[in-house]
Each structure stands twice: as C-alpha cells, then as structure tokens.
C-alpha cells in the first residue's frame, strides 16, 4: 500500500490518468468518506484532510457495455463500471464478453488514442 497526503494538485499525480499503472482512492480523514474522482476537498464534509491510497485494483462489475459506434476507432470496445473492494466505483475497459457481477482485477493497457497524454487505461481481467 502506498499512501499520499492530499496535495494541492487537482488530481492525483501518480495514477493511470498521468501514465502510472495505478488506481488511487481518496478518503476523508475526518468523516471517512471515500471517493474515486480526485478532488482536494471531501465531497461529504468539505474537509481538506484527504488521503489518497493505492487501490488493490480488485472489484466487481456493476455495469457493462460494448460500444460499437464511436469516434476513436472502428473496433468495438468493452466498458465497465467497477465497484472496487475499497468501496468506490470507477469506469474501465473490459472484454467484450464480460458480464455484470463479474469479479475482476484491473490491469493497464496502452490507449489507442495518442492525443491523450496519459497513455494508459485501466482494463478489467476476469478473476476465476
């Protein structure tokens, strides 16, 4: 587990959105609220006492889709909402055949869109 105090950065500076193969979960030290989309203040109590913790990357799919009509490429892609075991929900890529309610572990693959500066995207591998 790697932990980092909340910084003045708007977003985490070490997660997949900036090219590092990791997902981080934010937690409020004052009220214990947890969340995924980074922000400097707790969305529940407003506290600035926020800690960001590296997620285990394990969770369960809450929703899945296969997108056929899109602008970033011609091949269909799988998208899932994953409920991480740390208690937050995030969006990730998944296999075209992944179903709702599947246990998954996040890996990271290269983004096919070179214009996006992160370079990595989270991808669900099914746990058996």
């Amino acid at each position, binding site marked *: 587990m790697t932990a980092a105090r909340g910084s003045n950065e708007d*977003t985490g500076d070490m997660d997949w*959105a900036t090219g590092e193969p990791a997902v981080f979960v934010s937690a409020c030290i004052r009220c214990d609220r947890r*969340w*995924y*989309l980074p922000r400097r203040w707790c969305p529940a109590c407003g506290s600035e006492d926020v800690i960001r913790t590296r997620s285990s990357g394990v969770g369960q799919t*809450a*929703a*899945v*889709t*296969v*997108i*056929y*009509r*899109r*602008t*970033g*490429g011609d091949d*269909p*892609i799988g*998208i*899932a*909402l994953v409920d991480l075991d740390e208690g937050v*929900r*995030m*969006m*990730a*890529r998944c296999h075209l055949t992944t179903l*709702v*309610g599947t246990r998954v572990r996040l890996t990271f693959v290269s*983004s096919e*869109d070179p214009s*996006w500066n*992160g370079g990595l*995207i*989270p991808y669900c591998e099914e746990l058996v």
Partner: protein
Amino acid sequence: MYIKVGTGDDGGSTVSLEGATDCSGIHIDRAGCDGASVANALLAVGAAVAIDGDQFLISAGWLRSRTGTLQEDPAWSESFEAMIGSAGSREPYLVAMDAIKVGDRPSEASRLPRRGKALGWITGVGLTPFGRQPGLSAVDWQATAATKALADSGRSRLEVDAVLTGYATTVGHLMPANLLSEYLGIRPQIALGVSVGGATGLAMLGQAVALVTSGQARCVLVVAGEDRASGQSRDHSINTLAQVGHLRYEVPLGANVPGYYALLASAYLHRYGLKAHDLAHIAVQMRRHAQNHPGAQYRDPIDADAVVASRPIAEPLRLLDCCPVSDGGAAFVVEEVASDPRAVAVTGVGQANRHQHLSEADFGDLGARRSAQAALTAASLDLADIDIAGVYDSFTITLALLLEEIGFAPPGEAGAMARSDAFGPRGSLPLNTHGGLLSYGHPGVAGGMAHVVEMVTQLRQEAGPRQVDRPRRAMVHADGGVLSAHVTAILDTLQEIPA
C-alpha cells in the same frame, strides 16, 4: 379541527380555526355564509379548497402550515384577517374555485380534481419540425421557433422583457441569449444563456416562472434551436456530447453518451432479469405516437423485433433504442398573467442535481423522484392527479429509469407497461404523444422543450389526431448529462369544471 367562516363587521368573510390540527376530521362551520363566501375566504388565504355539495374540504398541508402559526403569533392573525377582508378582489384565486384537496385523505375528494395556484402562465408555444433539414443556422432555428411562440401568445417582440436561451453545440457562443435577442431586434432587460444539458429547457421554464413570480419580468421568451444534424459531422456531435463524462477518468476510455446510458441499461436489465426486448416496446410506443405528428423525424411504424434487430450502438442499446440527432427549434412565452383562455398555468417546478458523472451516480436515487415530488408538492398534487406526461426519452432506458423513479411505473415494468399500451393515447398515462426524442427527434435543448410544447397543446385540446380525452394536468420532466440534472414542471389548465 373546526374551521368557522363568518361575516365580519365590514361585511367581508372571516375564517377561524379551532381545535387540534388533526386533519382526519375537518369540519367547516359555514355560519350561514353562502358557498362562494366560504371558498373565497379560504382561497384568499392560500388554501386549496373543495366544494362538494354542502361539504367543504381544505388542504391538510395548508392547515398544518397555518394553524400552528395562527395560535402562536398574533401578528399573523392580523394579516390573516386583513387578507380575508380583501378576498373579493383576489381574482386569480377565484380561478381555483373548483379546487378539491384533502391533503393526505383521498376518499371522496379524490374523485374530484384538485388545484394548485398559477406561478406563471405559458401563453404561447412554438415548435418546428425536427429532422435532417440543412439550410438554417442554429440562430435561425431559434428565431423561427421564437417567432412562432410570440405569434401564438399574441405578444410583440417589444413586449418581451426577458430572453432565456439554451446553448447550441454548433455555435458554442458565450452569450446565446444576447446573440438571439440582437438577431430578433429584442432589447430585453434580462438576457440569460443557460446550460444544463437536456434539462436546459425545463430549467429555463423554471427560471422564467421565477422571474415573473418575483416581479423581475412580465413576459419571458424561452428559446432553443440548433442545426445539430446538419451543422457538424456526426463524429463531432458524438465527441461534444461525450464531454458530459469525466474529462480525465471517463472520456479517455472511449465511452460516449450512448455508452454511458448503455451502462445504466445493463445494470437495469441485470437487476430485474430483463432482456433488451423488454425495453424495445418503449421505442415502439414513441414511434406510434409520432405517426400522428407531421413534424416528427421518424414516422414509419416499427415493432419490438425491429428495435432489437437494428444495428448495435452500445449494447444493450440498439439504433432504435437511441434518439436521432436533428435540426429544429422550440420556444415558449411565459407571462405573469394569463392573457387569454388558451394560457396554461405552471403550478409547480422541482429540481434535483445529485451528481454529474456516471461514476458517482447513486443508481437508487438519481434525482428524478426528488425533483418530481418537489414539483407535485408545489402544485398541491399527487402523482395520481397527473393525466398526461412528457418525460425525457433520449434512450429507451432513460424513459424507463425516469418513469420508474418518478413512480409512474413499478420497478422494472416500464417496458411491460409500454407493451400493454399504458402510454398510448387512451392508456393510463398518455406519454410523449408527439413521439418524444426517440421519434419526433432531438436537436439538443429544443428536444426537451418539444415535450412542453406537446403537453401545452394537449391541455389546450389542440392536438388534433393525437388529442387525449380532456387532460387537465400534465407533468414534464427532463434530465441532463447522465441522469445528472433533473427538472420537473406541472402544467395545469386551471379551468372551471363544467357542471
């Protein structure tokens, strides 16, 4: 609880309340006053009143809010009496003379309609056909719809003192209301561009009502229009709309708006053990409605098999589960007073904003129920009082989730209700009788406003072949983003009940 109505020294009616605030047994002592005096006195102090033969019924909510104060605050008593004294001059309340309301107690009174009070009046509406119609710019569509609405209301451009305009993705202008006002030659005191996604039209209606209620404006022009189909490439349109997703944590994954709604659909189907075919009936009903509207983009009949067989967009959503991208415009005029008998009252507005991004949405509490309940409470109505509805239907799943969270359909059964014709012209809830976004079309903000125009048209009984049998009260509801922003409005004819 006893309510005593009498005649004051000055000849005006008086009302007094005695006993506990137990709404289960309300008696009104007429003390020899005639029915009009009683109703007049009660209406003048803001109560919703029923007259049923010799019985008078009064809203429990009003009693609860008033009686405690009455007993504790002498100053309130004085103003109470003062209002009664001027009861005869309060014409707007007399419009509601036929109102029936017993708050929490259905029984006898539930057979008779209740009434809220007008917060503002929709005096004119304008709607263009929707479809792929190259040739007009976004502002041209807005001006076309605005001109229709003004003509319908009988107002000239010079009488407009506020202009509210929705954003257009093909323009991206910082000041859409100023842009349109200049184009039309209107110099309004208030000009406001509004941006709440698909809920923008109803959010503007809510603000228009607030402007006239607060006395800041008397005649508000609400407009939207866009060349969304012809003014940009389809890819550009998809990319623009995808930005309601999170810029760094959702959009880079390659998802788009159909994808976000498809995720909602997959969770929904999984939860209730349904198949895509179950949602398809919603699209079929919308198409059936559109067949009776010459302005609809798609009018060819379809069945559920055709919906499921159409090409996949974002599983489980197929092409015919998704609204088209269209060109067109819609507008309405909201005024402080009803200028003619065709005016339709807005009696309640509710809103709820619980999340922006799908990742943070609470699937069990998206905001639709809160918004609808707030609007109903403002209008002193229950869901059962609603005769017809216009509910946002960007995708079949959108309509299913909204209908179920608002309470129009039991959980998991919106599709089954559509299949059983519940949302048809003679069903229990005639819904989106113009064809909705799914078949009338969707040029952006104007798409959600078309539902308002259709409900006004129905309440005026001017819907021709689509006309539902004498509707009195309509609910319109829209969402923006990914069920992120919710706005609900209650529209009411507030007309006398024929004896």
